[in-house]
């Protein structure tokens, strides 16, 4: 499976299961420029052809919940990596 590591000084990410999909809870410790980068991730998933690949829900204080369909999990993590929201990704057995 794909694992990732983030820098808790700038972002906080937790995962949980939601009916077989993966639900991310994302909170920003340092907003600039990471929040803008995160919006690029959101734009990427909202602009493609699939509507339910990753659904973004914004809450107060720039806290986000993202429900990611299990077949888009890797894509989502790689997008976070691309925009340097996570620092490391690695395949583990």
């Amino acid at each position, binding site marked *: 499976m794909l694992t990732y590591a983030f820098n808790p000084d700038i972002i906080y990410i937790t995962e949980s299961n939601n009916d077989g999909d993966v639900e991310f809870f994302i909170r920003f410790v340092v907003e600039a420029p990471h929040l803008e980068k995160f919006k690029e991730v959101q734009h990427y998933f909202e602009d493609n*052809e*699939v*509507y339910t690949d990753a*659904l973004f829900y914004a*809450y107060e204080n720039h806290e986000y919940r993202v429900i990611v369909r299990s077949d888009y999990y890797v894509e989502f993590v790689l997008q976070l990596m691309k925009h340097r929201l996570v620092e490391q990704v690695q395949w583990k057995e």
Partner: protein
Amino acid sequence: MESQAIAAIAIFLVIYALIISEKIHRTIIAMVGGIIMVAVGIVDQEAALHHIDFNTLGLLIGMMIIVSVTAETGLFKYIAVWAAKKAKGSPVNILIVLMLITAIGSAFLDNVTTILLMVPVTFSITRQLKVSPLPYIMTQIIASNVGGTATLIGDPPNIMIGSAVSELTFMAFINNLAPIAAIVLIVYIPLFILIFRKQLKTTPELRSSIMRMDERELITDRKLMYKSLTALGLTIIGFFLHQALHLESATVALAGAFLLLVLTGEHTMEEAFRKVEWTTIFFFVGLFVLVAGLVETDVIAKLAAQAIEWTGGNVTAASMLILWMSAIASAFLDNIPFVATMIPMIQEMGNMGIDNLEPLWWSLALGACLGGNGTLIGASANLIAAGMAGKEGHPISFVKFMKVAFPLMLLSIVLSSAYIYLRYLI
């Protein structure tokens, strides 16, 4: 019947059959048919151009440009989430508010556009509530067709009728069609709740997660939104006043569109032009030329005479015939070619002595627009929504849709018949 007329009928029927068979894209078929009408000399290019209703095309293009720019701003998502919060996260209430938003949106925008804007946000809300999106999507499909009936710009049949008959202004459409559209929607609400109530259960935690959402985050470009709203507002005011200003509706829509492009600059222009559905525009062009062949060879006039004979020139009989025929036809076929053919026929009936054409026009509009709710293939909005739902793993089958929608469509036509009879014919 002279040979030109027979040739015109033959071309028309072959093309129509090919459009129905859906083997080849309808736009290509309609354009080829139109070109054949010109090529075999039934109409010359000049006459064909004269029959193309450029007011309809200009109005469609103008509105498509305004909407495609506005959609970029995230405004529609904002409204949907805001409404879901106002509905306290209750699935039944959300179903009703989203349906009403769809109906109002469709009254002023193209139905397909409204559906394209509403369905993604519906997926997002229903996923969070862990309820099936299907009741939401089906009610939105139905609402988009009902809402589109209410105004001149809501649905292509109305645009075409409004363009062809200059006495029927924007205000006239609202005065005459909005009341019945509102009645139909109000009658539908309890029926929707009754039909779908079992699928609309959620937990208090999931409801509260809706309530904590921050809808302001959804606006992606605030400056662009103000510009779009200004242009959209001015355009709609323009529609209300178009007769007083002696402007036709295409002028109003295109003025709104290019005003918006002046405000937003040229980089939005390329994108906006790209988003105009040119295939639909050319479909219209082809159809207008096809029908021109029938008009110029007097086929339409003969059909009109026939219709008058059947109904004995009685306006009530003619209205009901048009209303029900349009509804049944539109439930199974594309309503655009049907209306394109009916318009010159009703005009001919006017020339032949029926002096009160108004009930006939409203019957055509109501039948053609509401009839689209009958089956999944009755309107483009239905097909688009079903396609989107199917791709995300929630297929809507032909039968599943028809079981709910066909009776609702018949009910709306019964209500319309009563409305037309009571308002115009006694």
